């Protein structure tokens, strides 16, 4: 994430256009590559050294990118590279002990240690330092006395990205930077986008949502608990953290009200036009669940007798506003004879807490007249005990794959 001073955007008739770099532009890529080189070349050197080189590179590389904002772009890129750096301590001896001894000796002198040896033969700075060197065995106490400062830290490791990756990260980071000042966020999720993933991040970040069905999908309005008492930028940082999560799926349209330098502005994005890529990996549960879901569809297709039940991909969101979450079923099962509809959710990797929550949601959904099945894999969870008690609460357990008959018998 960028610091606010790195964030750049243009305001055009009330709309914000965050600064972006073209990942196809050779000049941009060569600057990105040079900065990566600079970091890589500094592995093993002190931080102050790296910072000095970066400061001079902003003057050399910046103007080639952009006459007036080039140096800020270079700073922003280096900030993003810093997130991929690991730092180490430079010395074996303890700088704190060393300097404390130096200060004690100096303070014990009848007058301040002289910088040069004079005729009066007053004790000098050199005398103090060499006495400490003798006592501690540290060769150059002056150089080591503040070796624990941040600038003296060594760049221990650097996870080098490709120039393209850096530029893509930059483009997302600039939009995130604009969102720091956002008061709310409205996302129109169109059909085909993964609402479950979206709600995963809504819940993770402690945001509050309002859900409204609109033609072709759902409209999601996001802000925080205090927002109801007046717009606040307090949740801007979380809305910024939400964005890469949203970028993991599509299609959607986004609009945010932003307090931009004390002016009202709007940020708008369309997933089909952004060309942005997320750097989030996505929740583990979702990655694991994908395979299980595909396997279930195949198993259902192969099943000889599914009674009157037809399987469809889920397209609904069941909101549970009081619990600040929503349930997004994977599948909808329709009984062609009775017209009964049952929603089915297959959990990916789960924790004990997920299960307890799901059982509560099942009850809540039932109270509202929805019928819901939740299936959880024995393999993808942590506690068999928790699973067996959740089964009593209505959760359908399965081993490697969810067989069609397990669902059919739960439907019966």
């Amino acid at each position, binding site marked *: 994430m960028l610091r606010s001073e790195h964030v750049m955007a243009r305001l055009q008739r009330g709309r914000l256009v965050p600064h972006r770099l073209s990942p196809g532009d050779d000049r941009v890529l060569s600057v990105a590559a040079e900065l990566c080189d600079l970091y890589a070349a500094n592995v093993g050197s002190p931080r102050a050294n790296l910072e000095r080189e970066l400061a001079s590179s902003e*003057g050399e590389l*910046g103007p080639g990118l952009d*006459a*007036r*904002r080039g*140096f*800020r772009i270079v700073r922003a890129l280096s900030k993003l590279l810093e997130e991929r750096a690991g730092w180490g301590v430079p010395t074996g001896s303890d700088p*704190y002990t060393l*300097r*404390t001894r*130096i*200060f*004690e*000796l*100096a*303070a014990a002198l*009848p*007058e*301040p*240690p002289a*910088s040069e040896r004079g005729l009066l033969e007053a004790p000098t*700075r050199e005398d*103090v*330092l060499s006495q400490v060197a003798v006592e501690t065995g540290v060769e150059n106490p*002056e150089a080591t*006395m*503040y070796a624990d*400062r*941040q600038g003296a830290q060594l760049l221990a490791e650097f996870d080098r990205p490709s120039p393209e990756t850096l530029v893509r990260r930059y483009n997302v980071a600039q939009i995130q930077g604009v969102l720091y000042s956002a008061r709310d966020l409205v996302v129109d999720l169109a059909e085909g986008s993964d609402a479950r993933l979206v709600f995963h991040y809504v819940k993770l970040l*402690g945001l*509050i*949502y*309002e859900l409204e069905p609109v033609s072709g999908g759902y409209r999601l309005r996001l802000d*925080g*608990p*205090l927002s*109801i*008492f007046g717009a*606040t*930028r*307090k949740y801007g940082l979380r809305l910024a953290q939400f964005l890469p999560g949203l970028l993991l799926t599509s299609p959607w349209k986004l609009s945010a009200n932003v307090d931009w330098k004390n002016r009202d502005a709007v940020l708008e994005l369309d997933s089909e036009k952004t060309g942005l890529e997320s750097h989030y990996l996505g929740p583990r549960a979702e990655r694991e669940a994908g395979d299980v879901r595909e396997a279930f569809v195949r198993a259902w297709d192969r099943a000889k007798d599914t009674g009157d039940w037809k399987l469809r991909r889920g397209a609904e969101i069941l909101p549970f*506003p*009081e619990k*600040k979450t929503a349930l997004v079923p994977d599948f909808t099962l329709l009984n062609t004879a009775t017209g009964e509809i049952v929603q089915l959710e297959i959990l990916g990797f789960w924790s004990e807490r997920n299960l307890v929550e799901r059982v509560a949601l099942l009850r809540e959904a039932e109270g509202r007249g929805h019928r819901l099945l939740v299936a959880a894999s024995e393999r993808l969870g942590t506690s068999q005990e928790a699973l067996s008690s959740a089964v009593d609460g209505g959760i359908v357990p399965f081993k490697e794959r969810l067989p069609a008959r397990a669902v059919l018998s739960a439907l019966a």
Partner: protein
Amino acid sequence: MIELFYEAGTLVATGSSTLPEPFVWDGRTRQWRAPASAYRETVLGLRDAGVPHEDRAAAFEKVPLESRVAMEPRPYQREALGAWKQEGLRGVVVLPTGAGKTAVAVRAMERVGRSTLVVVPTLALLKQWYSVLQDAFGGMVEVGLLGGGYHEITPLTVTTYDSAYIHAERYGDRFAFVVYDEVHHLPAPKNAIIPRMLLAPYSLGLTATPERPDGGHELLPDLAGKIVYRRAPEDLAGTYLAPFELVRIPIELTAHERFDYAQAEAVYRDFLVKHRLPMRSPEDWQRFIMVASTSHSGGREALLAARRRREIREGAMRKGVTLETLLRRHWDDRVIVFAKSVEEVYALSRRFLIPGVTYETPARERKEILDRFREGRYRAIIASDVLNEGVDVPDAGVAVILAGSASRREYVQRLGRILRPREGKRAILYELVTTQTGEEHTARRRREAFA
């Protein structure tokens, strides 16, 4: 029956179809919701009206706090505390720096005797309050820290405004009493949301200078309580604050420095003229930074020139030599040197072999250095802005300002460092000002502010 819950910086009520202001119906989650700060009036209201209710919001506890540090309060401290009690244990106390605001807070904590959160503007003050509270209550309760790399929440926790802004909604139910140190920071738009996220029915704001140029002090009564007690430096000078002498030492640039300076000055002035930028106040400076960092051409050069100009002024070679002379003259008087930048602190610390204190200094080492300075084991220390704003350094006989900004608040508060009362003491404040540069003007403005 009405039940109250604390939820992420807000107060949620269930079991009633309508609730009075400031509760609103939150359609997003289908609950009655109010800012957490409504807790006091809500509970008092329900109690007075005899409405049956259950308080599941408050998670604070009684903590028996009795200071181990025996100190007779000065009369004005006693008055301040009395005025604050009179107003229902809520309000702002205005006392000059050096008058012992911290002691008032410690007394107030004893009086409330419940979980307490102290909010401070800087990491230096975080560390300072930690050591004060540790000294006073260390045997009875663990002192917690939130911010600056610490994340330890206890019934007596010190945090910064920045950390409180982020984390208050997680811990806002745990504290019955909140102390805002340097409370003039609270009305800043970002900080003003902090009190709303805290249930704390009791609060105390402390400052020497509540007024804000943006008029934000008008929000204080709502955020921390009204001003319940106020004393100006004149009210206490002589009796409680040591008299002091102000000595200004002009420093001439060397020929080489003068040449460099003139060059940088020309680039910087050119830019100001070209963009018709005035330069009379800190706001003008902010504006210059903004214009220069977004300017089409010459902006970066102007910024660099402005920085260079400042560096020459602040780092003038003769300043170092003069400082050496002053250290020699006052080697037995406990000298505190204020440098402008962190780098300068470390450079001077290396040069004179005296301890440096900056925001980088770890909490324990910082306490050790200041303790030793207090005991006289260290004769001098060099500090960056870290010692601003009420960080306590008792008994410094001499202060030297190497370079400062023209901000009135900074100046008054720095002066406060050496205005600690001590018998027979005459404090001296040296100000080393480079001549024929902008610093002269800065220094004059400072003294006018104090006159």
